[in-house]
Structures are given as C-alpha cells and as structure tokens.
C-alpha cells in the first residue's frame, strides 16, 4: 500500500533521513523506533511530503506521493498525525470533527462519517460541545484519531501517539490502532514507548542516524537482545 524506496529527507540541505526502504501493507501496524534525534519525525514528514528537501520514491497504491499536495494526499488516503497535540484547542469537539472532514464537501456524508466516529469513540459523543482544550490528554488523542478517521484514510501515520498518556490510556490508543489495521488500514507510527508499541505491532524498524539499521517482525525485535538493551533498557 505504502512503499518507500531510498528516501532521503532533511532540512536546508542537511539530509537527516539517509536512504530508507520500507513497505507498509494494508492490515499492518509498523513501528519506527530510534534514539532522540535519529530522524523518526523527519522520516514521517518526508513520507507525507511535508519537507521540501527530499529524494527517493514514495508511492501510495502506486501513485507518486511527491507529486501530490498535502490536501491531495489526504484525499487519496494518506493521513498524518504530527508529534505533539494537534487538536484545535479553541474549537469544540464537534467542530474539530467537522474540520477532520474539511475536504468532504457533502454535508450529509460528513454527518454520516462523524456519526460513525462517535460510535467508534463513544466517549467523545458526550463531549461534543466542549472546547478541545478542556479535554484530558487521552480524550484529545481520541479526538485526533476520530478527526483523522473522518476521512477514512488508507494509511495512518502517527508521531508518538502515546506520549504524555497514562499507561491504561496508552493501551487504549494502541488497541484502537490494532482495530484500524484489522479493518484493512495500514498504520505507521513512531514510538518511544518501544515495548508497548512493538507488542501492538506486526513489524518494527530501527532507525539509527537516519538509516534503517534493522527491520523485522515485532516479536523478533522484542526478543532481540541489542534492541532490548538500547531501546527498552530504561523502561
């Protein structure tokens, strides 16, 4: 579904991601792990065509991603939830969801899609009139996911979805991602919470200094002594 070949990406002439090959198939959860500054976020931004400075090839169902604008990409089914909070704090939950379907010009379709998300995230249904700023961290993450899913993307990329969340909430978020994959979507996420993330993933990729040092089944990475020492030691 998503295919990345020889991706190099960076800022102002300095390439941070330095030749990454990666495929993410429908129904799969793939996690990128790596030290701070390894280039994980840069990798996702590169894939999402948010960096001017990128080389290589990224295709979504065979279509060249670099030829598409952010709006077109979203329309074609590639969604990206960036690092940090990205709800609109001064908009209500309902307005945030409506903005998730900004590209849908059909109000009836939009309403149906939002209702479907409220079934998937019932906690949000009671908060529709609340400002997003007043939600808890876990609720905001749910809102981000629901807002993203309004477009029914084929591929969802998430940059550190578990950051700042309580352990039970983290489990919930990963369970949601599993459900999305089970529904035939592809999930590519970056995570610092390596053990939990790999447990919820099919495959993992270890990024070191912008290169993919290791790519394997999640279970294999979980059992890898070097990965455990370098990335799960302090947890």
């Amino acid at each position: 579904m998503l295919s990345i070949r020889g991706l190099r990406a960076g800022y102002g002439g300095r390439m941070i991601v330095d030749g990454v090959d990666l495929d993410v198939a429908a129904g799969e959860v793939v996690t990128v792990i790596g030290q701070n500054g390894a280039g994980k976020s840069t990798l996702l931004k590169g894939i999402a065509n948010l960096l001017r400075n990128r080389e290589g090839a990224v295709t979504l169902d065979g279509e060249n991603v670099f030829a598409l604008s952010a709006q077109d990409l979203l329309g074609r089914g590639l969604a990206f939830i960036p690092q940090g909070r990205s709800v609109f704090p001064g908009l209500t939950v309902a307005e945030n969801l409506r903005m998730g379907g900004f590209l849908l010009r059909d109000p009836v379709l939009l309403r149906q899609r939002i209702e479907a998300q409220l079934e998937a995230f019932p906690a949000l249904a009671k908060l529709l009139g609340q400002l997003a700023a007043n939600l808890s961290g876990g609720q905001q993450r749910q809102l981000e996911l629901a807002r993203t899913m309004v477009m029914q993307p084929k591929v969802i990329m998430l940059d550190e979805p578990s950051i700042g969340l309580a352990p039970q909430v983290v489990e919930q978020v990963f369970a949601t991602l599993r459900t999305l994959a089970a529904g035939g979507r592809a999930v590519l996420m970056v995570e610092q919470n390596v053990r939990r993330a790999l447990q919820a993933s099919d495959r993992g990729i270890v990024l070191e200094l912008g290169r993919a040092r290791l790519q394997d089944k999640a279970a294999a990475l979980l059992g890898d002594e070097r990965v455990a020492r370098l990335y799960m030691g302090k947890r």
Partner: protein
Amino acid sequence: MAFLEQALNGLMMGSIYALFAVGMVLVFGVMRVLNFAHGVIFMAGGYMCHAVMTHVVAFYPLALLLSAAGGAVIGAVLERLVFRRLRESLPMQIVASLGLILMVQNGVLLLFGPEAVQISVPAMRTVVPLGPLGVTLQQVLIVVVVGVAMAGLHLFLTRSRLGTAMRAASQDLQAARVVGINPDRVFALTFALASGLAALGGALLGPLFLVFPAMGDLPLLKGLTAIVLGGMGSVGGAVLGGLAIGVLEAESTLLAPTDYRDLVVFAVLILVLLVRPYGLFGRRLRGEP
C-alpha cells in the same frame, strides 16, 4: 440629553472603529501579520464609493457594496503579492505597510488630486426623529450596516465551513494543514474579508466627513487602540473596544474641550492595561506558553 446625544454619536464612530479593528484582528489572528496599510484600504473604500456614485450610478447602497467588493479584491491581491511572503517578519510587514501607504496615497493624489472629495447623498441627510433626539439617516445607516456586517461575520466564523477553518488555522496552522486546509487560501480569504470590511467603513464614513488621502489615519489610530483595549487576537474584544472608544471620546467632549478626547481615550487604555495586560478580553497567542 447631551449625554444621550453623545452616546449615539459615539456609537456611530465606535462602529466604524469596530469594523476597522475587526479586520486587523482577523488578519493578525490568522496570519500573524500586522497590516498598517489597513487604513489606506479604508480610504480607498471612500474613493471607490465616490467614483461609483459620480461615474457609474448615484445609488448609495450599490456603491457601498461595490466599494466593499473592491476592497476585498485589493486585499486578496495585497496578500498574494506582498504579505504572504512576509508572515515571518514583523519588521518587514511594517516596512511593506509604510510602502503601501505611500503608494496608495500617491496613487489617489494622481487620480483624484489633493482636494478632498465629497460623497453627496442628499437622502442620507434626512433627520430621523429618535424621541427628543435628531440623528441623520446616515448615522443610523452606519450603525445598522455595521451591526449587520458584524452579525454576518459572527455567523460566518462560527457556522460556516470556511469560517471554522479560519479559526482553526489561527489556532494551529500545522494541524490545519494536516486536516487538508490550504493555508494560502485561508490567508487570501482572511485578507479579502478584512479589507472588504475596511473599505465598507470608508464608504460609510465618506458622506459624513470628506474623502481625502489621509482619511484612514483616524480609524487606524483608534482601531489599533480598540484592538489593544479589547485584547489582541479577540474579535469580540475588538468590537467592544471600538464601541467603547467611540462612546468614551464622544462623552469626553462634554467634560473637556474636544482636543482632549484622545488624551482621555489613551488614559483609559493605559489604566486598563495596568490592570489587564492582555486587554479586556485578551488571551495568549498561538505559540506562547
């Protein structure tokens, strides 16, 4: 009685300030651009109204609409050619604004000459008896048109898809991109809307005062004061700030010579800022902790 009369006068001028200030707040809120050339767009509105009335058709409501539309077009063009590139740099915005002010004012001098022109709408001088007070139709019209424009703006921002997208972009530009909002389109729309409102203001004030190259200076000064008073970034605050300043300066003429009214306004502004540094309705801006 004099008190009530001045309150009405103040409300009228205050609505002009509010209309002006709202546009600057919108542009600043969405783009983080301070457009000091907002005043010359106001002035251009006055001239466009005059031009329509004298050369096209002497029908004031149509002239108002066309002036607002013309202002919107000017705004969209300015955004595209000038301000979109300057979003990161306040000093450059100021330099560009000053350049634009000079250009537009000189352009107007070239087209219309240095003499002030008058928009003559005899019907608007009709006195409307309002209890014991007499106000002209023009004054009533200003308050009504501004009221309708503000109500429309409120509905647009809170109910419509594009208006909500404008608020979304002002709160988190990266998140706006992520949901598929094209920032450049939002910027152009914001600038067009703000400039349309400013030009409408100039066309509304034209028949009361004269139309001259520096006619935008007064609303610029008072509009900026209204923004600071209301709280930078708050649309509602800018409206209330504008109305408050209009009423305040009108009432102050009852107590002190007319020349002192700006002093009264700024004294109140300073007092408010001492108590509330972010203004009456101010919040912190995007990016601030």
